[in-house]
C-alpha cells in the first residue's frame, strides 16, 4: 500500500493528515500488518488533550496490545465511532481509516515529523534489522 505524500509519519507508525489546524490521525499499513488482525481500539474522549510522542490510546490485535502515540499536541475534536464495531477497517485500509482528529496546539510539531520517503526508508531499516 502506498504511503500518501501529503501525510506525515511517526517512528511509532502513526500517520497524520493536516487540514487547516485539524490533524487526522491513524496507524500505518506497516503497523497494521505487524499487529495482525485488530480486534479493539481504545481511544480518548472528545475534549481530551493529547501530547506529542505520548500515548493517547491503544490498539489490540490477536497477537498483542500496542500503544498509540500522538504525532502532535492538541485537543481531541472527534473519534472514529465506526472502529467500535468494525476495528478490522484498519486492517482493510489503514491509510483511509482514521482514529482521532486533533486540533493542533503547536502546528510546528507537524513539520518536524517524517515525510513519506523518510518513513519508508525508516521501515525498510526496521524490517532488515
Amino acid at each position, binding site marked *: 500500500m502506498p504511503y500518501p505524500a501529503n501525510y506525515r509519519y511517526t517512528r511509532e507508525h502513526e500517520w497524520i493528515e493536516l487540514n487547516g489546524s485539524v490533524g487526522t490521525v491513524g496507524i500505518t499499513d506497516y503497523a497494521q500488518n*505487524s499487529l495482525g*488482525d485488530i*480486534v*479493539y481500539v481504545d481511544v480518548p474522549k472528545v475534549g481530551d488533550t493529547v501530547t506529542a510522542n*505520548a*500515548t493517547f490510546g491503544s490498539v*489490540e490485535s*490477536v*497477537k*498483542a*496490545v500496542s*500503544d498509540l502515540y500522538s504525532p502532535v499536541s492538541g485537543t481531541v475534536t472527534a473519534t472514529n465511532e465506526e472502529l467500535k464495531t468494525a*476495528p*478490522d477497517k484498519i486492517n482493510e485500509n489503514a491509510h483511509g481509516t482514521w482514529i482521532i482528529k486533533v486540533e493542533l496546539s503547536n502546528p510546528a510539531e507537524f513539520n518536524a515529523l517524517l515525510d513519506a520517503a523518510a518513513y519508508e526508508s525508516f521501515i525498510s531499516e526496521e524490517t532488515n534489522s
Partner: protein
Amino acid sequence: MTSDASPSINGAARVTTGKVRPHQTQNESLVFEKSSPGKRGYKLPPLDVPAIDIKALLGSAAREMPAALPELSEIEIIRHFTRLSTWNYAIDLGMYPLGSCTMKYNPRVNEFVARIEGLADAHPYRPDSLAQGALEVIDLLQRCLIEITGMDAITLQPAAGAHGEFTGILLVRAWHESNGNARRKIIIPDSAHGTNPATAAICGYTVENLKSNADGGIDLDALERQVDDETAALMLTNPSTLGVFENQIHKIADILHAKGALLYMDGANMNALVGKVRPGDFGVDVMHLNLHKTFSTPHGGGGPGSGPVACKAFLEPFLPTPVLVRREIEVNSPAPESWETVGDDQPAPLFRAPVAEPNSAEDPRKEHVTLCWDYDRPKSVGRVRAFYGNTGMFIRALAYILANGPDGLRQTTEDAVLNANYIRAKLEDLYELPYKTPSMHEVVFSDKRQAALGVKTGDIAKRLIDYGFHPYTVSFPLIVHGALMIEPTESESLEELDLFISAMRSIAKEVEESPDLVKSAPHSTRVSRLDEVQAARKPILRWRG
C-alpha cells in the same frame, strides 16, 4: 468458532460404531446434552419427618419451576469429568517449553507435605497461639526467600506475579510519598512483560518506554538521559525476556539511585539466578518472586499462584499488614492456651514454636518466643490479600527449598541454563537466533527463515502439538519479530530434550518440503484452528447463542 475439523472427527466417531476413541481426539458433549429426565446419582431413604411447605416458608422467593439442572447417573458424571481431564496437557504428560513461564515439575513430596494433618487443616481464624506450626512454615519460608534474594524483608500475601508487581510498586509509591513526592513516571524497557506497564499505570504512574540496545540489554546512556527527578522506578526483568543476563545491572542501579529512583526487579526469570547471584547484592530495591515458577508450586489450572515481594530494609515499614513477628513471652505471664495442657507425661504437639534457650542468668523473662501477626503498622500500604496469602503454596515451596538444599537449588539453576543452551546449540543451524548474547534459562529464536516460505511462529507452534509437545511461547518478546521463546527448565532429561529437538528439526524440514502441512496444523486434535479473530471481535458468550 471451530474449524471444519471438529464436526468431521466427532461425526465419524458417531457414525462408525459409537465406540469410545482416545479422548484427546474425541469431543465431549455438555452435561446438559447428556441429561435425561429422572436420572439420579443418589437415592435418599423415604421421608420420615413431616414434609415442609416450601411456599409457606419462602413466600414469593420460592421457585415456581425446578432449576434446569442436568440429570445424570453417577458413572456418567464421573466419565464426563474424567474425559475432560484427559484433554489437559500437563507437565505430568510431557515437556511444556513455554518460555517465560518456568513450567517445571511439581514434585510429589510437596503434595505429601501439604497434606500433613495440622497443616492441611489449619484455619486462618485459628488464634496465633494455636497456629505456631503453620506460622513456623511461613516464617522459615520467608527467611529462605530473603536469603535467596539477598533482600531484608518480605511479604507472602500477593496471589500471583502481577499482584506482586502491584504490591511492589505500591511500596515504591508509599516510600516516595513519605519523602514528600510520589513522583510521576516509571521507566520500562521494551522487552518487559506486558504486566509491568499495566502495574505502573494502575498505581497511578505514566509509563515511559526504554528501547533495548543491539544486544537486547539496557542502553546505559539512554537510561541516564531518561531518568530524572520525576522517575519513581525502573521495572526490569533480569535475566531479560530474551533470556539474557543484564551485565550492567549494578550500573543501572547506580544511575537510578543517583536520582533518588528505585530499581524494581520482575523475578519471573529467577530460575536462572537462584543460588548463583542475589538481586539484593546487585542493587535491586524491591522485587517479586513467583513460587509457581521458580519454586515448583503448581502453575496454571488454578494453581493458585503466589507472588511474594521482597524488599530492602527502608521499604519494610510499608509492607502489607499484617507482618509475622517473633515475640518473647514473659515467664510470669500466663502461658498460651495451647501449651497449658502439655504436661511432661504427654506427647509434645507435632508442631511447636521453637523455645529459645533459657538464659535465666541474664534475663529470666526471655524464656519463650512465639510467632504472631503484627497489625500495628501505621505506614503499611494496607492489606493486598485476604488472610496471609495462598498458604498451601508456602508449604509446597518450602518443601521444595528444603528438599533441594542450597547445593540442590544451585544445581537446579545450572541444569535449567544448561538445558536451554543445549536446545540453542542443537537448533541454531535451522532457526534464526536474533540475539547472539549468551542465553540463560531460555532461548529466543525468530521465524525469519521459515517466514520467507510463508510459515510463521504460530504455525510451527501448532505443528509441535502434533508431535506431542505443548507449544513454546509465540510472538513474545515483542522486540523479536516472530519470536519462538523456549524454556525447557531443569525438569527435562537429555532424552526428552532430544525428542523435542528432533520434533523441531523435523518441523523445519516440513516447512521446506510441505509448508501447507505445517500451516494447517494441528492435525491430531479434536478441533484444529479456532477462529481467534472472530472470537475476539464477535464473541459468542452463550451456549447455543
